[in-house]
């Protein structure tokens, strides 16, 4: 940071346009994974569910009947690379939709609790405490036992267990923002509560919520993998990184590639997202400026 004279009044908003070099590689990794997932049918070498019992457990690089198994094949002779690419769709879809759902739910509830105070606040924040104190995996197992396994149910479970994270942040931030004179003034000028929350409170707490959302996104990827690993998530034969890890585990000694590549992909995705999240947080933290 070069020291600029304090008196110099900027003439443009201080939105720094400098490229976030430190986070750039990770951003590229995430974007690449998203693009691969979207374009899976175009980029995957073969169909992820086509079995070839003659090409079971082939090591990476094996060519069998005209198909090159770049990352090897699994116990049913399916192409690991193709399954990895299709699996990204599941991971990202589950993470994205559960973050969207739980983020929206939690933010709204948190803001309402802080804004209305009184019994509304007590009810919502007690609910936050209760949900946070129930182990997520336990809740997931129970829910899936009741509703049956599946992608949509996984998203519902994650949305229902993760919203309190956002609610807590939204609640705390709204408490401080709602007392800011500009919110009071707008209230004084006859703004409805919807306008106050939407136009004055939300934009001022969105940064903190975005930080929570990025960090949660990484966690959601892991949760989905965990649930699928336990057989509670995506059902075979659909490819998912968690499910691949789960079956691959049985062959670690003989066919290390089945579990290793989805593990690596998970590691890379979650690490990248977390580093991006850290970066976003640092940039939003006024002390770090």
């Amino acid at each position: 940071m070069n020291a600029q004279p304090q008196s110099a009044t900027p003439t443009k908003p201080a939105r720094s346009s400098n490229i976030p070099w430190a986070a750039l590689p990770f951003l590229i990794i995430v974007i690449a994974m998203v693009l691969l997932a979207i374009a899976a049918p175009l980029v995957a070498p073969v169909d992820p569910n086509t079995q070839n019992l003659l090409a079971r457990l082939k090591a990476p690089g094996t060519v069998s009947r005209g198909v090159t198994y770049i990352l090897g094949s699994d116990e049913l002779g399916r192409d690991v690379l193709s399954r990895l690419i299709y699996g990204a769709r599941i991971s990202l879809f589950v993470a994205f939709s559960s973050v969207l759902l739980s983020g929206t739910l939690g933010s709204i509830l948190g803001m309402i609790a802080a804004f209305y105070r009184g019994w509304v606040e007590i009810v919502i924040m007690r609910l936050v405490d209760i949900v946070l104190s129930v182990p997520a995996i336990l809740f997931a197992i129970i829910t899936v036992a009741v509703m049956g396994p599946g992608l949509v149910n996984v998203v519902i479970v994650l949305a229902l267990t993760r919203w309190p994270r956002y609610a807590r942040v939204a609640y705390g931030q709204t408490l401080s923002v709602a007392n800011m004179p500009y919110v009071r003034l707008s209230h004084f000028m006859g703004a409805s509560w919807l306008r106050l929350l939407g136009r004055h409170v939300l934009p001022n707490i969105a940064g903190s919520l975005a930080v929570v959302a990025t960090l949660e996104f990484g966690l959601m990827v892991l949760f989905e993998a965990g649930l699928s690993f336990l057989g509670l998530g995506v059902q075979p034969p659909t490819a998912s990184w968690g499910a691949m890890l789960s079956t691959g585990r049985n062959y670690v000694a003989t066919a290390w590639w089945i579990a290793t590549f989805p593990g690596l992909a998970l590691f890379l995705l979650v690490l990248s997202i977390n580093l991006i999240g850290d970066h976003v947080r640092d940039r939003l933290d006024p002390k770090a400026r």
Partner: protein
Amino acid sequence: MTGPVLDVSDLSVSIRGNTVVDGVSLAIGAGEILSLVGESGCGKSMTAFAVMGLLPKVAKIDRGRVELGGSDLVSISEERRRLLRGAELAMIFQEPIASLNPLMPIGRQIEESLIIHRGVSSREAKSAAIDMLAEVGIPEPQLRYRQYPFELSGGMCQRAMIAMALICRPKLLIADEPTTALDVTIQAQILELMKRLRDETGTAILLITHDMGVVADMADRVAVMYSGRIVEEAPVETIFASQRHPYTRLLLSTIPRLDGQAKTELPVIEGTVPDIGAWPAGCRFNPRCPVAGDKCLTELPALAPRPDTGRAACWHSDRVEALV
């Protein structure tokens, strides 16, 4: 002359059972500036919030009427009150910079109440906001419309806040110590602006301050408040010329003289404001009053007409002129 814009009668407000505003009556005519003065904690802001219908949750109105253009604000629904705020009555206060949303361009904040109350299109709102920015003396209004609060100085922000308050042409503007946070030059400019806008729009202004210099500058009429009650009220020249309540007298003697004949000691009113809920019996000023008599310890004086014009609440009005 038509009736007053704002007519407050016998307004009482309590906080957790302790009275903080006690039977306040005041009226403001169109285009008039009424200054409400008094020491910290005497209930000025609570009176203003009661008028706006914005009392904190712990406070409630015990009795009284607040009539704005003939309708009683105390008895109407909160939703109707909300629709009046910003449209018919508006408020500005001390913290000009903090009073603007840091993430919203100035112009958007100014046009907000126009959009809420008048339902105008965003194009109309924008041009009205730009006109309003020019009207409050902000140069380059087109550019400022798009700028964020941090790009404006404190004085500018206060101008923007005034623009916000006046864009719907309210009948009444409540200004609660609008210039306290600003330096003297800017303060004078803002006060000048408020006066000019009053002249142009005929908005009545309730100006709350404890700066008697500001009162002398701005007010048409002055109401002096002490421990929740109005103790004296009169046109500004009248009250500066002669006082019929010892508290007013002492308050006025605290203004530093501008003619160079600086007083050797700045008189301070001895004693402190009694805490709410611990008001003395009789006249609430009696522990600090230099002219108190026996009656003052037992009976609360009511506002009575002064001999010239205005009202005062003191048993011994005739002793006041001899003070200091």
